[in-house]
């Protein structure tokens, strides 16, 4: 039941995208997300689609796997489409009861739908092709310049990597506790909302207890290995840019330039 969530999951495969430096992927994702907000027409989206499709094909992650991650946002998607469809004023196309669909409404609704879809798919590609450890390494190094402003970059990166590392563990734990309570007759699928909320208590309390226990154990284990923060700490696999990373940066900048041009001239 919880296995459907693919956001933040890693998909092991052998591809160029998998081997790219995480900093490139972070930057690329950021550029892609920004570019979606730069665009104000469908030609821009066509370009974005090309970029996304290429990335997906090159990454060797099956499309069905990425699509599975969209299940989680289906309600958000439907909701925003409906709101935009009915609430936009303009030239009426169809109208029934008190609702009317306008030409502008259809335009805005499809625009928003594509934007949300691309946002999620774009960021999934990054998390699917980058291990959490790599991701935080990239963040730490990529944001290293913030240290000048006394931002504790290393600590933030460490917290992030721990949080990411614990997502699957806590997910598994949730699954286990859920099963255990189901074995004791708990009903998590009740139709009544009050009942459903109440049924979460036997799930959440053990989950919190175990999260605190794990946090405590981890802190002890880290201290036992003399963890003292980022100062003077070296890495087993330091990040180094390679030729393919330079090429990837080039493609990303070309894409960004393309998106800006599309906005200027169409």
């Amino acid at each position, binding site marked *: 039941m919880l296995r459907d969530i693919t956001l933040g999951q890693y*998909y092991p495969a052998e591809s160029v995208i998998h081997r790219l430096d995480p900093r490139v992927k972070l930057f690329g994702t950021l550029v892609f997300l920004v570019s979606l907000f730069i665009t104000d027409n469908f030609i821009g989206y066509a370009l974005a689609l090309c970029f996304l499709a290429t990335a997906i094909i090159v990454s060797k992650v099956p499309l069905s*796997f990425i699509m599975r991650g969209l299940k989680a946002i289906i309600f958000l998607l439907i909701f925003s489409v409906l709101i935009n469809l009915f609430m936009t004023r303009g030239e009426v196309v169809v109208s029934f009861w008190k609702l009317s669909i306008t030409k502008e409404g259809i335009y805005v609704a499809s625009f928003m739908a594509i934007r949300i879809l691309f946002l999620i798919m774009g960021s999934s590609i990054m998390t699917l092709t980058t291990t959490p450890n790599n991701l935080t390494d990239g963040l730490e190094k990529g944001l290293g310049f913030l240290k000048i402003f006394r931002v504790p970059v290393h600590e933030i990166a460490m917290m992030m990597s721990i949080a990411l590392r614990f997502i699957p563990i806590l997910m598994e734990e949730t699954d*286990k506790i859920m*099963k*255990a309570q189901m*074995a*004791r*007759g708990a009903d998590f699928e009740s139709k009544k909302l009050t009942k459903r909320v109440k049924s979460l208590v*036997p799930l959440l309390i*053990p989950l919190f207890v175990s999260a605190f226990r794990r946090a405590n154990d981890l802190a002890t284990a880290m201290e036992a290995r003399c963890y003292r923060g980022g100062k003077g700490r070296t890495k087993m696999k330091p990040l180094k840019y390679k030729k393919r990373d330079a090429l990837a940066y080039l493609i990303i900048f070309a894409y960004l330039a393309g998106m800006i041009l599309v906005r200027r001239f169409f």
Partner: protein
Amino acid sequence: MSIIVNHLTYRYNEGTPMESVAVDDVSFKIEDGEFIGLIGHTGSGKSTLVQHLNGILKPTSGSVYYDGRDVFDGDFDLKVLRSNVGLVFQYPEHQLFETDVFSDVCFGPKNLGLSKKETELRAYKALKLVGIEDDFFYQSPFDLSGGQKRRVAIAGVLAMEPKVLVLDEPTAGLDPKGRDDLLLSLKQVKEETGCTIVLVSHSMEDVALYADRIIVMNHAKIVYDDTPVNVFRHYDKLKEMGLGVPEITSAMYKLRAAGFDVPTDIITVNDAVDAIMKIMRA
């Protein structure tokens, strides 16, 4: 009320590169009143297998019959099945959540829709069965010791008065005394309630004394399904699987290898003493 498992196969993460077979074409039958030891190395699929017995997991293929009916039929009430087949998960103490021990044990029977009186009566009986004294009833379950927590959690399932009790590694992480006490209470539970018990473990010592039938799993398949004495005859094969036989059986094999004429189908220390005494007198 027998349970029949028929050609059951279960795959994790089907359709992804992480796909793996946890249970591979397994068939067996659990009769009323049996005490079954399900043995296998870590990762042999035993935990996955038992989660099918009360319908928590749905098999990839194959079926499970309870009382002659397919439990994954659309109209089969899984809630009834779960009250009849009690499943105690690994580290069950992690599922405790109530403010006091007694309410936590009440959770199961309450979900069955029983009256308050009946619920409390069952909770009381269950706590007594696992040997928790009245003094602990209104303490927070989180203040108890590890062994006590586990007993309370087991009582939580017992209070539903299942006809079949399945326990997944109930002795994991307990000290030797805690382990012996727990196994002994399980035996008492069986004697007093007459329920069927399936004990999952990776330790031969645990099951050798109490089980009257042992099912051995290796690499997602059932390799042996027989009485303890017969299963332990496969001394070398079991060793290959990383399971071995109880220490005392192993000792008898060594004695025999050293030239003493002792029987090797011995699983308790008392029998071993008798056998050794016999050849010493002779």
